[in-house]
């Protein structure tokens, strides 16, 4: 059938990245706490990283570029997590809750 061995087929990585993105979006729509939404956001970050790495491995002329890009994504994800968790803790101190249904003061 396919002469390439399994780890060298790029479409597997693309489909897995699409699955991770879809799972992240599903969790983002379904979760009802702030931390759950943050975890789903991390899944979306992982999907983007995996997609970049797959294109970097199979399609890019310079294999260092995608790795640097993913490294920057990891750094930004760490910064985002730090900021978002501190905001979540501040929200919890004020409202005693991190459920998205109860944080409706700006709802008009």
């Amino acid at each position, binding site marked *: 059938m396919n002469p390439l061995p*399994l780890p060298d087929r790029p479409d597997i990585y693309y*489909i897995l990245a*699409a699955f991770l993105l879809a799972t992240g979006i*599903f969790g983002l729509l379904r979760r009802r706490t702030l931390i759950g939404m943050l975890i789903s956001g991390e899944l979306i970050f992982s999907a983007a990283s995996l997609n970049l790495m797959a294109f970097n491995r199979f*399609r890019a002329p310079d294999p260092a570029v995608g790795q640097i890009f993913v490294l920057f994504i990891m750094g930004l994800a760490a910064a985002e997590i730090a900021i978002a968790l*501190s905001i979540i803790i501040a929200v919890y101190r004020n409202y005693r809750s991190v459920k998205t249904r109860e944080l409706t003061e700006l709802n008009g």
Partner: protein
Amino acid sequence: MTAFPASQMIVSAIFVVCIATTVVGALIAALTARIIRSVCGLMICCIGLAGLYYFLHSPFLALMEILIYVGAVCVTIVFAVMLAETDEPVREEKRWATLLWGGFALVISVAIFWGLWHMGAQQDWTAPVTRVSDGSVSAIGKSLLTTYSMAFELISLALLIAIIGALAVARTGRTKP
């Protein structure tokens, strides 16, 4: 390549295990009701992703994935779970509304998955003509300090601002009256 028999099959089996770890971790992270299990699912997913990065010829990023995501991000989320009680609330609204929103989310994510699957699997992507570097750690380091030095400095600045901002935001309400 190697003379060892069935080595190709063993490599493929390890690859399938990595994919299964990623998929199961992502499903646990998205579907469980308790947040702490969701964090553990994210950890499992990141470990599987690290294995996939290794298969994508980047052991450095595999190490970084485990170090940053499993070691830093997930542990930080666990701390936040400890500080704020964050289980999914019981479903107090009507049953059909929950089903409606769950079905809506499912339809959207399945549509995105289907579209990206077809785009990724059937598109005829062009392969590169030549490779200008080998993608090793030394090549990454060189281009990080020459071509991408501006972005490197900017991301260090962004991390510094994130640390200071996190301290400033989380500090409010802790001062003594």
